[in-house]
């Protein structure tokens, strides 16, 4: 029974991942031909994608460096000093990472855009705005990877070093202790930051004025790709961008995994209350960090009530709920917010109904195989991580070109289709959250239940589920939040359909010509609703996070 369930889970997952991607690749190759050199060459030859690779790489590297520069002092202050409301501070500093990127884009645009500080005026300023936005979005990664080590490392290590000739100065302690110990965490977090900056879509779409990343260029040309005899270079661009992006993401993820695996030394730990010392100067880091973290989020809310005044004075602003009304009721072009909420909740429900049991079954299968056939377990483990090397746009393209274009009119009648992309994107996260929890389950609980005469189903319901409750709740919330905020894939899959989701509605309102004074407030109103839902889910999930091991979020 159990083996049958495992086989079914592996088969279903393979079909969900391989069929759309395989069919999409097949369709594209029919147009482009099979030569990878031609695909990558087309990137530099086509005016739409010229310099895109260079821009993507440079902005991702710069964003990663800035994220490290901004976040390391925060992680240090948080880990090494005592703070009142420590859990709240940590939650607030993590918010940017869990908030959907389209909301971040709206918040930052409200601050720097034409009716905010209006500093996004030329290439130089939007470049810096993008880099700072990526640092804002990813700072939680560095904090979450480094802070557990900083807050738990036995203080005797530093005390001992202070008493030794080569540890007498701060610089020597940095060189001999902190740099070697922190480096693996920083590099692993930097790799992840690089991946997220490299595949950033919403922020690039809304903050840069002309530049594109591989991800955004793929999204831009998606509707014309894969059609023989029609704008064929776009298919080359999609294939070239996908190939390069897949290679770079795979390398980064492999590097992250190698760094974490090779970190064999078990560091002596102490209780955080013994490590942390009072330090009033730490506020000089934490207060600006908190302001930095919440400013774009507050801007979204404020922006939803701030309406450009087109009256006689011109150029001024007034406060009101017109944007909310507009978003709530919709217009000729846009669906009302309630419809987007229902769609989003519907997609999230379907996603969780499939991704949670599927992810759980895959994690259980890997755990079982680790005892019987370690090589097979490793293979399945890597296979379940494969979608991490596929960006949201690539998954969206897989669904669009692999499924929808098989029969466009029927596919666009199938309301649930965007869920397919969401399932592809979220199932690997369920596996990554559930697997460590399943591995750490004490087998004697199961054995004891068996000798008490409990059957497999009874053990599952009465023993396993209660013991895994925390991880199940965290994965569920993660899946719901990811599905609700998913933008890249949904943008490609649903932009030509009648279905809208909250992120798509935010994007659509904002894309309306700026002469409409309600376009920005309406988009901010929808963004506020999505932000509140996501924040509520995240804060609920935090209650079940019993250890901060620096691993998966």
């Amino acid at each position, binding site marked *: 029974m159990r083996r049958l369930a495992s086989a079914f889970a592996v088969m279903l997952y393979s079909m969900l991942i391989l069929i759309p991607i395989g069919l999409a690749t097949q369709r594209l190759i029919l147009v482009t031909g099979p030569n990878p050199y031609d695909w990558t060459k087309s990137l530099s030859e086509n005016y739409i994608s010229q310099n895109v690779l260079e821009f993507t790489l440079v902005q991702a590297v710069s964003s990663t460096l800035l994220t490290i520069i901004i976040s390391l002092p925060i992680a240090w202050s948080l880990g090494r000093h005592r703070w009142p409301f420590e859990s709240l501070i940590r939650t607030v500093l993590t918010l940017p990472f869990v908030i959907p990127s389209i909301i971040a884009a709206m918040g930052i645009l409200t601050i720097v855009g034409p009716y905010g500080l209006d500093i996004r005026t030329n290439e130089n300023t939007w470049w810096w705005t993008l880099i700072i936005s990526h640092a804002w979005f990813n700072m939680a990664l560095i904090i979450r990877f480094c802070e557990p080590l900083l807050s738990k490392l*036995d203080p005797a290590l530093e*005390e001992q*070093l*202070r008493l*030794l000739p080569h540890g007498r100065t701060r610089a020597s302690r940095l060189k001999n202790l902190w740099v070697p110990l922190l480096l693996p965490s920083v590099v692993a977090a930097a790799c992840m930051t690089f991946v997220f900056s490299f595949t950033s879509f919403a922020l690039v779409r809304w903050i840069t004025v002309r530049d594109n990343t591989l991800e955004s260029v793929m999204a831009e040309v998606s509707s014309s790709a894969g059609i023989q005899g029609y704008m064929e270079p776009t298919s080359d661009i999609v294939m070239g961008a996908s190939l390069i992006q897949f290679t770079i993401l795979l390398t980064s993820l492999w590097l992250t995994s190698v760094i974490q695996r090779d970190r064999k*030394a078990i560091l002596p730990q102490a209780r955080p209350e013994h490590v942390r010392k009072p330090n009033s100067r730490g506020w000089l880091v934490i207060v600006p960090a908190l302001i930095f973290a919440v400013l774009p989020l507050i801007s979204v809310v404020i922006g939803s009530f701030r309406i450009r005044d087109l009256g006689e004075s011109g150029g001024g602003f007034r406060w009101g709920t017109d944007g909310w009304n507009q978003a709530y009721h919709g217009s000729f072009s846009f669906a009302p917010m309630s419809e987007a909420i229902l769609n989003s909740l519907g997609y999230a429900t379907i996603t969780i109904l499939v991704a949670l049991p599927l992810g759980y079954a895959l994690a259980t299968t890997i755990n079982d195989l680790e005892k019987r056939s370690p090589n097979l377990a490793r293979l399945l483990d890597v296979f379940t991580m494969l979608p991490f090397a596929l960006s949201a746009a690539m998954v969206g393209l897989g669904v669009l070109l692999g499924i929808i274009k098989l029969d466009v009119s029927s596919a666009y009648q199938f309301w649930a289709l965007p869920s397919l992309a969401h399932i592809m994107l979220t199932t690997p996260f369920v596996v990554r959250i559930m697997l460590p929890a399943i591995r750490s389950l004490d087998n004697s609980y199961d054995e004891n239940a068996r000798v008490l005469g409990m059957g497999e189903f009874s053990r599952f319901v009465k023993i396993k589920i209660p013991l895994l409750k925390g991880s199940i709740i965290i994965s569920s919330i993660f899946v719901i939040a990811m599905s609700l905020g998913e933008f890249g894939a949904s943008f490609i899959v649903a932009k030509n359909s009648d279905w809208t989701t909250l992120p798509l509605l935010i994007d659509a309102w904002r894309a309306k010509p700026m002469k409409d004074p309600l376009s920005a407030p309406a988009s901010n109103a929808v963004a506020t609703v999505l932000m509140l839902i996501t924040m509520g889910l995240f804060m609920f999930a935090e209650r079940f996070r019993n250890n901060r091991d620096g691993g998966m979020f």
Partner: protein
Amino acid sequence: MLDCEALTKAFDKTLFKNLDIHLGPGEILAVLGPSGCGKSTLLRCICGLESLDSGTIRLNEIDITNFEAEDRGIGLIFQRPVLYPHLSVSGNLSLASKSGHEEALEEVGLSGFEGRAVENLSGGEGQRVALARALLAEPNVLLLDEPFSALDSDLSVRLLKDVRQLLKKRKCPAILVTHNQQEAEMFSDRILEMSD
């Protein structure tokens, strides 16, 4: 020469008050007392990892009371060996001195251990490496905070004898904190008893 005068320290309760300690070259003092009486805090105050409420510490006639721990030239061996897991045995010794590793390890009975990873050392071996490292730094005074309490008694006795011999040979004054009367008598020239 270590001269501590009128040392006083209190946390929630007074740990020690107006405590005087005088150590000549090569002299070894054992501080004996039950857990929680402030023995370890006394060592941490002397080496500068904790601050005193009042009192003065003079080392070779120099007042070091307000010196940072790193500037006092006092060595400390913790209860458990504090070895850096990202460094080999030799790497750990390099933090004290770039040369003389072979001799230092030979002195503590660990010849040929230079390339070993510290995670593969036993408790006793780890504490010997910590001792070799502390001695390589040529401290003016060596403080030992129950360094062998986690080891079995035979090994602990053997190590204490070896350490005493090494300290006497180098004329390095030392203070050993312990709660074991027998250990204190065997290792030290004088015993200071602290109580709750």
